[in-house]
């Protein structure tokens, strides 16, 4: 299993733990403040674990002198990213226009308002959707190709 696959698995694990944590807190307590804190922890987990797997050049514990990313891996990541943004452009307009129509035309007859917190959820949700689709696509492509990417 190579670094790309490890990163994808870590992202999936982060998203799943984020979803489970949020669901547990929502149903168990319903306290928004606590929910926000746990959500932030989930986001940190989501975005910082890939950095630990593949540290940037300035980190001392980065493994040197080894090819960890070849043309095959680059092609897979490129395709996964394209699919992720493709999925984003299906979901994002549907959510935004759907909310607009529902809140503006149906619920409040032209005077619809939305909470600023909901906008941040749309922004964060976009990031999570892209990470999710990209991770699933990377793992599926490696599995389909019959190559475990053992670098």
């Amino acid at each position, binding site marked *: 299993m190579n670094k790309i696959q490890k990163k994808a698995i870590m992202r999936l694990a982060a998203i799943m733990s984020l979803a489970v944590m949020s669901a547990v807190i929502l149903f168990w307590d319903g306290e928004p403040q606590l929910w926000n804190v746990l959500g932030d922890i989930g986001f940190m987990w989501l975005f910082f674990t890939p950095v630990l797997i593949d540290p940037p050049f300035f980190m001392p514990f980065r493994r040197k002198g080894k090819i960890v990313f070849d043309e095959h891996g680059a092609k897979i990541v490129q395709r996964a990213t394209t699919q992720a943004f493709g999925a984003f452009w299906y979901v994002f307009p549907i959510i935004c226009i759907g909310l607009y129509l529902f809140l503006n035309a149906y619920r409040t007859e032209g005077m*619809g308002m939305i909470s*600023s917190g909901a906008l941040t959820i749309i*922004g964060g949700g976009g990031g999570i959707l892209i990470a999710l689709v990209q991770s699933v696509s990377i793992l599926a492509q490696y599995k389909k190709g019959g190559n475990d990417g053992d670098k």
Partner: protein
Amino acid sequence: MNRQQKIAWFNLIVVSLALGLSVIAFSIGYFIFGVSVHQASAGFGFMGIMGFYGLNPVLFRKGKSKVQFDERDTAIQRKSVIIAYSIFWVLFVAAAMIPWFIIGPNGTITTNYLPWMVFGGMCVVMLLQSIVTLNEYGWKGKNNE
């Protein structure tokens, strides 16, 4: 001029025309006729011109007998998409987060903001992708057949 450049020019003209006419119509309504912002925003109906973007596959058909897309074109297209989406992503996150900082976590904002995020995002991606593509090929004087 190859197919990619023609498409980039067409998209650039469509987006510029839609944005330009919308801003002009809004400005005329608001500054010259003195109508309210809500009424003047009807000028943004010109954004419908962006619908011509959907004519790309019809207007610029792929030829059957000729190689029209090589490695260089692929690299240029990739670069343009990466730049466009990188800038789009920064703007998207800013559009989602800035209202929260300005009006606070308990504040509300009109739902008209949501379609603006979608169409604004589309405009940014189309505009930047076209500009980067044309810049990579060279704006004029080069025959990239």
